[in-house]
């Protein structure tokens, strides 16, 4: 390969790139702005922040000890922000999206729940009014509410006045039940023992308030698995990886489309009339696109490091290897556009769509774990997925060089594939 023409191709493309201020701003500033926005939403920054709370409204038609207990426990839960409301008000707030879930405790809920606790029978219904656009939050509310309801009902059953009434009623109705005599006797013994327990409580001042209740039989200690102990997750690392790759692909695609413009303007006639090999022409173009792509990624990460404290917690060499292979993949993608595209206008729309799909499936916008399982597997054929995973591994996950090997090799594989298709399909003849 002749060095002088090769170097001239690179220099010319870089001169053209930097002469277009709009392209420079789009390439460097826009990914930084968008990644900063996504990062602030998804993560948090260097300091730990409280997660966003789920707004719920509570409608207590019952106003029993049980329902008041549920309302109090729910209000004290750090997952929620709560407000009391009438049922009509609750429906309106959820419909408007001001509240995510409305919890309606019907009249007689406490009594019915207590009876159902001991004797089975009809279970009362707790109504959840929910915003259908917040399906995931509904599941969380349902789970946490189960805990608070069980605690409140069991506390009342084992220690409150309602509980004594439930036990007395259960004893009175025992003979009318169809329970076999032997079992009936054992149940009578148990309920009588519970009555005795209540009598003892009455003799001890304050004991009823501390009465037993069914509680969670375990506690949870949460530990975020980041690079090292005491190193907090920095969501900006992921958002800058995602947006960096998105705009690196856009930059590469634009330079690929420049080839179509050069062809349209007759510039490739000059290039082809010179004694320069196809390898030099394609190599020079690939190198210049790769340099711009690499700059896009590195400038984005440099900003994230300085402003948001993103760190390469894994291997710096691995980070560079993933970045470089990603830039090469993007460069050959640009070349592919140059080879397959007919006119810049016709190619631009298709290319934008392809890039957006690629980065969306690659987890650049939202993490891939929210995708269905089949889609998570499918995204392994998307190069952006490997790029994002590789950069995540080298930044906040803090995985060593070994974590960069697979993404690097796969990205180089994609680069080879795109480059080969581009070389075969490139139109060399200039009429």
């Amino acid at each position, binding site marked *: 390969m*002749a060095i*002088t*023409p090769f*170097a*001239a191709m690179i*220099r*010319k493309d870089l*001169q*053209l790139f930097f*002469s*277009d201020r709009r392209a420079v701003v789009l390439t460097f500033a826009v990914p930084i702005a968008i990644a900063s926005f996504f990062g602030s939403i998804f993560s948090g920054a260097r300091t730990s922040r409280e997660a966003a709370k789920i707004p719920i409204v509570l409608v207590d038609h019952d106003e029993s000890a049980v329902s008041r207990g549920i309302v109090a426990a729910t209000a004290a839960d750090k997952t929620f922000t709560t407000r009391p409301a009438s049922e009509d008000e609750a429906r309106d707030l959820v419909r408007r999206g001001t509240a995510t879930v409305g919890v309606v405790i019907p009249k007689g809920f406490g009594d019915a729940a207590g009876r159902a606790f001991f004797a089975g029978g009809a279970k009362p219904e707790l109504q959840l009014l929910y915003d259908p656009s917040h399906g995931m939050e509904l599941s969380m509310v349902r789970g946490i509410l189960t805990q608070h309801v069980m605690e409140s009902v069991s506390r009342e059953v084992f220690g409150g006045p309602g509980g004594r009434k439930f036990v007395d009623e259960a004893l009175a109705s025992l003979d009318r039940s169809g329970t076999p005599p032997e079992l009936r006797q054992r149940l009578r013994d148990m309920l009588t023992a519970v009555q005795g327990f209540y009598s003892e409580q009455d003799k001890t001042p304050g004991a009823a308030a501390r009465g037993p209740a069914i509680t969670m039989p375990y506690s949870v200690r949460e530990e975020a698995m980041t690079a090292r102990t005491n190193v907090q997750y920095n969501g900006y690392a992921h958002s800058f990886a995602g947006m960096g790759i998105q705009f690196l692909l856009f930059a590469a695609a634009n330079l690929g489309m420049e080839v179509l413009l050069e062809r349209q*303007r*007759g*510039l490739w*006639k*000059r*290039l*082809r*009339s*010179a*004694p*320069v*090999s*196809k390898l030099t022409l394609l190599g020079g173009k690939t190198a210049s696109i790769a340099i711009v792509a690499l700059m896009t990624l590195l400038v984005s990460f440099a900003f994230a490091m300085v402003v948001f404290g993103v760190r390469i917690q894994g291997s710096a060499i691995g980070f560079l290897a993933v970045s470089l292979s990603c830039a090469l993949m993007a460069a050959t993608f640009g070349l592919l556009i140059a080879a397959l595209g007919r006119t810049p206008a016709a190619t631009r729309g298709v290319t934008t769509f392809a890039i957006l799909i690629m980065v969306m499936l690659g987890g650049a916008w939202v993490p891939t774990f929210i995708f269905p399982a089949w889609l998570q597997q499918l995204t392994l054929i998307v190069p952006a997925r490997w790029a994002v995973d590789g950069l995540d591994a080298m930044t906040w996950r803090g995985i060593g060089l070994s974590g960069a090997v697979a993404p690097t090799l796969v990205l180089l594989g994609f680069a080879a594939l795109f480059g080969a298709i581009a070389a075969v399909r490139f139109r060399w*003849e*200039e*009429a």
Partner: protein
Amino acid sequence: MLEVRHLRKAFGSLVAVDDVSFALERGRLLGLLGPNGAGKTTTVSMMAGLLTPDRGDVLVAGQPLAGDTNPLKRSIGLVPQDLALYDELSARDNLRFFGALYDLSGAVLDTRIASALELVELADRARDRVKTFSGGMKRRLNLAAGLLHDPDILLLDEPTVGVDPQSRNAIFENLEQLKRRGKTLLYTTHYMEEVERLADRIVVIDRGKVIADDTLDGLQARVPAAVGGGRVTLETVFLTLTGRSLRD
């Protein structure tokens, strides 16, 4: 100096050039004329190495011109019909890039750039971006880009399209100067008066075939004299040879 022999090129079922042969002599300008779609640009493209002929040869000093990196390509300069320039770069940066494609660098390249800009009278605009140039200035720079590597043969495909009379005259003077320096020129155009002024020999091509290859005098002799005994114009000769039907 440059010879084409039995060139043929088809695009699908369309035969654009069919058995075209002619030769260019050193220090002479050959005018290649033809109606739209006659095959002029396809012929020039094959001569410049942009298209591979289906049949036939392009010979430079008796050697076949084939292959991307053939050193014979250095003896050919192309001035394409399009304004093949980077608008966002300066005139100097454009020429620096095109010169580097011919492996020129350093002081040699600087000298060639200065000389080419001097010839086309753009030396004072060397640092200005091409997008600030008029159409005529761009045409002259287009010519300069084809001359940078000092080729013996210059292929000019309609180099005066859309320029004002002053710029056109300047280009003619440039070409006459190049001819005096011994350069071999091939010139395609639709403007008959340009060929009348510049060409030593004229090839007329139509529907992909050469229908005349002669001097201006020889072509004029093929058509009966005009009323009053004056010589017919080249345009009359051209229309006689190619017909008056429209070729859109």
